[in-house]
């Protein structure tokens, strides 16, 4: 029930942002579409901690900027490799230490979002990652990002 309420409020806030026209008629269309979406999500059984991970929103306040900085560093690194041609691609096989599937997906997504590393497969807790250079892969295998995501997930 708490999830349903917060999903409704978030969707409506989002709708208000997109719309910008706040006459009674237009806003009531917004309310109707939000209710329709929440009802559909309910029927699909996706209003749970996976489909609507509101409990992670606060944790993202510290994880987001950290990830952003990693992305900036990785972009500069890969751009240098584009210009210098210094690449040595390799596969990396690592374990995702997160306990929940959602945590593992956040980890795999963060890896893919960072240029120079692309998650190719995630089955169980096994990750197969393609990296642009062996150094990048070894850095990933040291697991700084993995422990960050574990912390985000709320476990130690």
């Amino acid at each position, binding site marked *: 029930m708490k999830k349903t309420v917060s999903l409704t409020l978030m969707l409506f806030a*989002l709708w208000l*942002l*997109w719309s*910008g026209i706040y006459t009674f008629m237009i806003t009531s269309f917004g309310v109707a579409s939000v209710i329709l979406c929440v009802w559909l999500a309910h029927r699909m059984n996706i209003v749970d901690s996976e489909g609507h991970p509101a409990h992670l929103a606060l944790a993202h306040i510290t994880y987001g900027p950290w990830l*952003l900085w990693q*992305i*900036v560093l990785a*972009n500069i690194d*890969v*751009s240098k*490799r*584009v*210009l210098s*041609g210094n*690449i*040595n*691609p*390799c*596969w*990396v*096989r*690592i*374990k995702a230490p997160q306990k929940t599937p959602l945590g593992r997906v956040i980890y*795999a*997504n*963060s890896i*893919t*979002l*960072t*240029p*120079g*590393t*692309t*998650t*190719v*497969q995630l089955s169980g807790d096994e990750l*197969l990652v*393609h*990296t*642009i250079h*062996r150094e990048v*892969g*070894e850095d*990933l*295998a*040291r*697991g700084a990002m993995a422990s960050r995501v574990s912390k985000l997930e709320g476990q130690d």
Partner: protein
Amino acid sequence: MGGVVDILSWICIGGGLFFSLMGGIGLLRFPDFYARCHAAGITDTLGSILILSGLMLQTGIELNLARLILILLFLLFTSPVAGHAIARAAHQHGLEAQVDGEDVTDA
């Protein structure tokens, strides 16, 4: 004040263009499919982050600013999913990567 914001905004947009260009050059220079994915990642991430940040500085504090932030957020959520889907499809259909040496493991 407006001048400073304008300059920052142009630095951001120029930087975004530079990194998008790097992505394009990498796409042409890198030897195989998987390496090219990394190059495309530059355009996807810092390219769009910087261009959208530059636009945010141009916008100022109004509704469009919140919209631009949300667009950036959605881009950052969806682009790795798309990138992963493409790489995974290639891998599952048996496309070999040009790699040197052993796999790196965390063990």
